């Protein structure tokens, strides 16, 4: 059956602002960078800085389930965002009434457990923990979510730079359109530790990393927000630099509404933001830079951008939102959502 429109049936977020879309929304409304925390880095006198997800209050019940109680933060963030996004459809999936697909997108993955397991390997491989290793696999979070929700439908984990989240939205829409699934969760998540934070310091000493997750739940059921478009993925190649890729992406998202919002991926880092700022220099509408508040959350940040874009439509602030992601090292890609409230 051909499906003409894809709707956003739910959103979820875990961010340095807290667990849920509500604290995320509140933090964005204040337009002030969330406070940094210290992150000890072995061999450094001064700690690194990052914005970390606070402890959940209260602790979510799913963290007591056998599959999730020992998981790395990335699985916990991803699951919380997914459950918030799917809402009451969770029960319909468990009852077998909905074929739920999952697209989990990630850049750095489970760095905490990977570092820990490799460290154990270097110290003494005979004592390296068999409980830790499976959690280092990229698709562990999506496996936990599928298990918790009881879905057997198609489930992809996609690795790449933050633009990959938007590729995930297009993939989900395609699965729904082609009747492979009824609905699909698209989740973007990353977690930080000193190793990942140190890696980005080398490229951008002023960058502030953060962690968390965001989720967008897509389906055929009509809802106030429709996903209108995901642009092509414009790669950063020998023959195409960031500026060129970003410009091509922006040209695929011409504004049609006077009250449009651009959710971009800039973060007050002149060199890193240059290509995206140039691409959108003629943008006339409002602009929201999620990373200025939350920090560079990698895949989570791209997901937050989409969550913010959808939330701005749901709360009636705008009638159309563009999302622009000019990624770390792979691609420039954009998306558009619109309100269908008459």
């Amino acid at each position, binding site marked *: 059956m*051909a499906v003409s429109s*894809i709707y956003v049936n739910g959103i979820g977020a875990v961010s340095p602002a807290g667990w849920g879309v509500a604290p995320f929304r509140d933090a964005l409304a204040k337009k002030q960078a969330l406070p940094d925390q210290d992150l000890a880095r*072995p*061999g450094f006198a001064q700690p690194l800085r990052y914005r970390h997800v606070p402890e959940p209050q209260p602790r979510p019940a799913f963290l007591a389930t056998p*599959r999730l109680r020992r998981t790395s933060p990335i699985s916990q963030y991803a699951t919380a965002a997914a459950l918030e996004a799917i809402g009451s459809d969770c029960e319909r999936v468990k009852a077998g009434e909905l074929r739920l697909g*999952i697209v989990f997108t990630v850049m750095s993955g489970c760095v905490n457990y990977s570092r820990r*397991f*490799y*460290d154990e*390997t270097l110290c*003494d*491989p*005979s004592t*390296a*923990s*068999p409980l830790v*290793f*499976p*959690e280092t*696999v990229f*698709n*562990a979070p999506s*496996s*936990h979510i*599928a*298990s918790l929700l009881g*879905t*057997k*439908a*198609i*489930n*992809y*984990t*996609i*690795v*790449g730079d933050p633009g990959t989240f*938007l*590729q995930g939205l*297009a*993939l989900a*829409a*395609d699965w729904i359109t082609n009747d492979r699934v009824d609905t699909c969760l698209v989740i973007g998540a990353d977690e930080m530790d000193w*190793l990942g934070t140190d*890696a980005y310091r*080398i*490229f951008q000493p002023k960058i502030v990393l953060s962690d968390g997750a965001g989720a967008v739940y897509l389906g055929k059921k009509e809802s106030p927000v429709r*996903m209108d*478009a*995901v*642009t*092509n*993925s414009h*790669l950063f*190649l*020998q*023959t*195409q630099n960031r500026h060129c890729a970003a410009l091509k992406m922006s040209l695929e998202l011409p504004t049609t509404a006077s009250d449009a919002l651009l959710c971009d991926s800039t973060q007050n880092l002149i060199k890193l933001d240059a290509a995206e700022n140039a691409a959108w220099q003629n943008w006339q509408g409002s602009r929201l830079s999620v990373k200025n508040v939350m920090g560079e959350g990698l895949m989570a940040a791209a997901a937050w951008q989409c969550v913010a874009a959808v939330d701005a439509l749901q709360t009636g602030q705008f009638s159309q939102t563009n999302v622009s992601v000019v990624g770390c*090292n792979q*691609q420039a*890609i954009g998306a558009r959502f619109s309100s269908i409230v008459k």
Partner: protein
Amino acid sequence: MLFPSVKQSAIPRVVITGAGIITALGLGWKQNVEGFRVGQTAFRPVTPFDVSRQRVKTAAEIDVPAELPRTFLKRKAEKRLERAGKMLLHAAHEAWEQSGWKASDNIPVVLGTTSGGMSLGEDFYRHALQSPTSDFQQASRVTYYQSQRQAMELCNAFGFSGPLMLIANACASGTNSIGHAYDLIRTGQADRVLTGGFDAISHLVFSGFDSLQALSPTRCRPFDAHRDGLALGEGAAVLTLETLEEAQRRGATILAEIVGYGACTDSHHLTQPHPQGDAALGSMNAATECAGLQPRQIGYINAHGTGTPLNDAAEAGAINRWAGEQAKNIPVSSTKASIGHTLGAAGSIEVVICLMALRENFLPPTATLETPDPLCQFPIVQKPTAASFEYALTNSFGFGGANATLILRRWL
């Protein structure tokens, strides 16, 4: 636009016009055919890292050729590639040359991997600890550690612009990637796609499987009654897929047709399959339904067949249930007995092995099998066997419950 995409009115047929492979049996189609045809095995002591304190010390390791194929890739970028990236480039070059494709825009790339350039990530970590005040070469390590960098170098090497998708569904990644490429063409989102999988052995992953006691301390013997684990391998395989119409318009040599793809998620356990192979059965059923085939029409199954007690029992159960009475007529083998489990590359490599079997008229054996497990109600190919058949099916199952199946049709 990735969404909404332009849809075609008719579903196109998808054919393979190029195939490249590198395994521990060698570089390229010819060396691998020769190896599989005689049931060669390729295990030896691991050399890229210290295994002296590991329980198991062997794997199917590749001598990666020092010379890279000539491409558009800059020398500086070539130098930065590590083992996995080099293997990928070798396999892609063979497929690209065979296909006769030329540099152009809009060739999507869909690749599967579990850990990409993990060895560079390991180098980064050790350097960060040992020399914390020195960033020497750290930027290069962290860049080329990432799978998307290795994949993007393929675009640079052959002169095309993507888009690029990297599927990391553990050991099913290589099958899911080809399946997704197949979907892109069938749904009209692309006329052609470069696809495959790649993975190199790394200390972290080797130690991980060792910690799980999943590695065989003796010899990897898939579907053997006395099997005691898997053996790791490494490699890459790349395919060029296109519509039948486009291949015929170009006058390309068609190697085979992909006729079915199925995927299913097993939520039983993070690392263990459902004991009766429910998701494996679901994925095989989905693939045969997609292909419009009955199990009796399948002439050969290249099984996931890792050699672990749990995987092979679940897969045998799934094949038994899927084929029913017909199981006794469908030859099955696991070529992991020859080249080890190449993880994210495995599915793609095994598709190329199915291509070899279809085109070269033989059944590759489970080279190390001694005593077939009585659970298997199907014949396990124990010796290289001449055979001509129309359809081959290949299974891949991964951690996290990723299950995927592809079906290929012989092209006459």
